């Protein structure tokens, strides 16, 4: 069976594409799948750092695409999860060295080796985006509950539809306390504007920073709410659509909630 190519994109930068790619990739690998995560941000690579594999890079995607090395040489095996591989970006080239056609051909090769190929799309809608979208079968749009992020996600969704790809949505960095106070848009507001299928909701989690800095996959942290959300997302990607989307809630106790309702203790 041929592997599936999924592009993870957002339009806007800094909304958590790279973290989501690493986490979903790791979660799918933990499900027993052969997974390749590909850093498409040529010239500004950082998926390798997030995964803690920066010191193992010998070859990169440009070498592999141009035939300077074999795919197996460019794919770096994760330190902890055996079936997870990273194909790093080149840091010295720019995005013009790859073309959509080259990427389609390259992904055709990758499909033979892996069950899932996750492409970490760079921010923006220029060449890097085109290169990432051209070979993709499916797309995941990451969006935070901010108007700027929603605006860019909306643009990207339009561009994906133009490529006949139906994207799914992950709302990232939800802070339930702020939504309760009315200071943040709720995921319903986001979905209302973007009107695409929701794949998951990820709560703001300080564990993400720790995991990124140490290079330990987030999904291995048992007590992280974001990790649990990403594992559920991976299961949904795998086709377990019966797994419900959990709405992030505030960690308030029953008595505090009661106090809020009757108007004391706040």
């Amino acid at each position: 069976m041929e592997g599936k190519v999924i592009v993870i994109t957002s339009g806007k930068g800094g909304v958590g594409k790279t973290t989501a790619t690493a986490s979903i990739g790791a979660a799918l690998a933990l499900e027993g799948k052969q997974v390749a995560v590909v850093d498409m941000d040529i010239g500004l690579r950082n998926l390798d750092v997030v995964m803690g594999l920066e010191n193992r890079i010998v070859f990169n995607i440009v070498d592999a695409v141009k035939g300077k090395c074999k795919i197996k040489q460019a794919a770096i095996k994760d330190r902890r999860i055996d079936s997870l591989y990273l194909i790093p970006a080149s840091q010295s080239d720019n995005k013009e060295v790859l073309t959509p056609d080259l990427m389609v051909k390259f992904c055709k090769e990758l499909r033979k080796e892996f069950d899932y190929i996750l492409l970490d799309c760079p921010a923006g809608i220029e060449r890097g985006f085109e290169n990432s979208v051209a070979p993709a079968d499916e797309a995941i749009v990451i969006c935070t509950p901010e108007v700027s992020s929603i605006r860019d996600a909306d643009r990207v969704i339009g561009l994906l539809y133009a490529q006949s790809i139906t994207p799914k949505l992950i709302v990232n960095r939800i802070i339930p306390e702020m939504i309760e106070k009315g200071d943040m848009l709720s995921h319903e507001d986001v979905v209302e504007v973007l009107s695409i299928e929701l794949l998951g909701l990820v709560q703001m989690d300080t564990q993400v920073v720790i995991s990124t800095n140490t290079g330990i996959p987030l999904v291995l942290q048992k007590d992280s709410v974001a990790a649990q959300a990403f594992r559920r997302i991976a299961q949904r990607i795998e086709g377990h659509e019966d797994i419900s989307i959990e709405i992030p809630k505030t960690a308030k106790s029953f008595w505090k909630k009661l106090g809020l309702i009757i108007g004391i203790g706040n």
Partner: protein
Amino acid sequence: MNTQFQNKSQVRLKGVKDGFWVTLDPKLPMAYLEEELTRLFNQLQHLALNSRVILDIGQSDGYEDIFDNLAVFLKNKFNVASVSVPKKENDHMEGQSFKLNMSSSAPQNLANTLVISGRIRSGQQITARRHLIILGDVNPGSEVIAGGDIIVMGSLSGTALAGQPDNENAIIMAINFKPTQIQIAGMIAVDPGKPSSSPLSIEYAHIEHGGISVENYIKSNPFGRLTWPLVR
């Protein structure tokens, strides 16, 4: 008989593409020209509304003020959308092709309306030559442009430009009216930022007293007072 013959030869009107071509001699007295134009445009009835008029005063330079006076006269009296001078060559060609069209087939209704269904997303732009109806939502960051009215059967959150370039009678209407910015003819209005009174109040924007004003469509019922159904 003699005067009638002169009338025909000196103020003439014919239909061209999306408007009317008026040919006249600017040397004739103003009162006479106005009288003749009134007679011709009265015959057009509602077709004159918002039409584009090309006023051909021949090669006579130095009659710019006559042109301007007549343009104001036509706009005020018959609500035509624009009055312009003929372009070289091209417009004549257009006139001819239209004539051929008319002779070969039944006259078509020139008022055309573009109906779009779906969601207009950020970065997307929809342009209609005349009226535009969107069955769906217009998201922030998108742009809808029309020569006439814009009607959104859903939420209007993006930018809407109606009556482009100079139709001041155009309106913008939406079931959920919260645009980023609207323009009618050359006028611009922005979202004042206050939440709308009720999510289900259909509102519309139009030009009034030299500015854009937004009102509840059902309450003000702007077209309910018309004595006769008109083509927009």
